[in-house]
């Protein structure tokens, strides 16, 4: 099958590391990056001197309160004296960090790459929401004093209106993910909640309520990628990156139908083509779609071609996406359960799929045997989609 890019080397993931995801970690962003990086190197059995290139992913600088985050984090990410690059595509940054690590290796330029993502959202006072004001168009949007949750509420309501989906059906995502997170030792918000808890929580921006949305969070994630030439020196169970895809849609979100995540579909089709996946819902064993809001997981499952448009809620109700279902979705607990330090949350999804395919996910391990997994993230003003396909 022809793919719209030309690869030199196959790439494997050989190690991953996470920090706890918590609100107000005492560590600095650099210390968080260091901890995740050190754990990933330890799991890979590598030292920093073995690493050729570093990729850093971090979402808006304003969260950590420090601009030039690539430079700021480079110490903690092992970047001193090495080629370092930083990627940033809003919330889609986490998976993009893995993809950027991948293309460093796939091109043949580096043999071993450390890809690190970090976010510390909690320092902003009184609330990180105020920092989001500077992502809007200064002339056409900012005068209305938008809050970030506005756009997602608008998207959620459009999705509900277009397909006649009820809030009760969407709340099941939050219930499932927070329950899954109880198995995750890194998680911030694992708990047994009910649909009623979601529906009775504080209304933020109708239809978004407090338990529909992931928390403010700090955390770090890192993975080690290696070329096929050397991967087996470090592990008997490499997990291969079989496909990657990333797309930007236009920024005119008020001028495009918000009921469907076209940008994720484009990214998914690119990744599936590369991985030779023709029937995603039959061939994908486990998936980590990006879920900063509960409706967003459903939205993304549809764009990932794992459900028809408007039908993800029905499949969810049938248990298809449960941890013991046909296509377990967010077995890690997702952002709703684990927490949402934006870029780190996306890379956490890649690390989770890696551990699932390696069989070392512990209590998070899904019940059925798994061979193909997909992680996806999404960001910017509803325009960036990033998808990665892994196989063992």
């Amino acid at each position, binding site marked *: 099958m022809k793919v719209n890019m030309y690869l030199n080397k196959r790439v494997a993931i050989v190690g991953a590391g996470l920090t706890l995801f918590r609100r*107000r970690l005492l560590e600095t962003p650099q210390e968080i990056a260091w901890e995740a990086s050190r754990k990933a190197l330890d799991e890979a059995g590598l030292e920093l001197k073995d690493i050729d290139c570093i990729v850093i992913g971090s979402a808006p600088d304003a969260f950590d309160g420090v601009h030039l985050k690539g430079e700021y984090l480079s110490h903690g990410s092992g970047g001193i004296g090495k080629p370092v690059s930083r990627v940033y595509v809003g919330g889609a940054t986490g998976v993009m960090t893995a993809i950027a690590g991948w293309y460093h290796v796939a091109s043949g330029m580096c043999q071993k790459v450390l890809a690190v993502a970090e976010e510390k959202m909690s320092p902003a006072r*009184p609330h990180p929401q105020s920092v989001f004001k500077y992502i809007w168009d200064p002339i056409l949007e900012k005068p209305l004093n938008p*809050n970030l949750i*506005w756009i997602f509420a608008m998207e959620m309501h459009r999705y*509900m209106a277009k397909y006649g989906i009820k809030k009760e059906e969407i709340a099941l995502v939050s219930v499932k993910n927070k329950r899954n997170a109880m198995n995750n030792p890194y998680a911030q918000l694992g708990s047994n909640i009910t649909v009623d808890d979601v529906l009775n929580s504080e209304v933020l921006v109708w239809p978004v309520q407090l338990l529909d949305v992931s928390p403010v969070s700090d955390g770090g994630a890192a993975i080690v990628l290696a070329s096929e030439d050397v991967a087996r020196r470090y592990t008997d169970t490499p997990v291969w990156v079989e496909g990657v895809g990333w797309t930007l849609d*236009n920024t005119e979100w*008020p001028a495009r139908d918000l009921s469907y995540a076209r940008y994720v579909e484009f990214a998914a089709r690119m990744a599936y083509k590369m991985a030779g996946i023709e029937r995603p819902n039959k061939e994908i064993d486990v998936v980590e779609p990006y879920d900063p809001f509960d409706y967003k997981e459903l939205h993304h499952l549809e764009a990932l071609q794992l459900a028809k448009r408007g039908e993800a809620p029905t499949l969810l109700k049938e248990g298809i996406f449960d941890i013991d279902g046909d296509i377990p979705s967010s077995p890690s607990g997702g952002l709703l359960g684990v927490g949402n330090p934006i870029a780190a949350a996306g890379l956490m999804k890649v690390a989770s799929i890696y551990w699932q395919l390696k069989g070392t996910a512990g209590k998070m391990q899904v019940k059925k045997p798994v061979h193909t997994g997909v992680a996806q993230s999404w960001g910017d003003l509803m325009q960036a989609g990033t998808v990665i396909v892994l196989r063992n």
Partner: protein
Amino acid sequence: MVTPLKENELDKHVTISYKPNAKYSYTAGQAQSKYLLGFKEGKIYGRRCNKCGKIYVPPKMYCDECFRPTDEWVEVKDEGIVMTAVASFISWTRERLEEPEIVGVIRLLPSDERDFVYPGIFHRICTSYEEVKNMSIIGKRVKAVWKSKEERKSSIEDIQCFKVI
């Protein structure tokens, strides 16, 4: 590792407040300038690409798909269909609001309901929380409520909100 601080405990911590004295003079550019000047006359302008037929509102001097210049100015109606609407009970700093702010996206006419991409505007909608909650506002036809001619300043604020007609 974990820091279970309460809000009042945070007061005991050193907080660094910093107000950057950063001021910006934004450029509206060719397309947006005409768009904003149109607001002063109570008109909404867009740009059409004659190759693909797409009408850009807010206008653009280039077609981002054909990657060529857009060809002509068109006037769209200040009326449209509500695609989505939400009621915000929090301010942009996440403080609690007593009365919700209602905003949404309007697909301006002429356009077709089958269009994935259409001339659109993000603005306030004059309606009740009840109508947002029961979703009856979505799909309704609305029209811009303009400020009086003297009050208009060539800003999106020249439109107070969109109201059902």
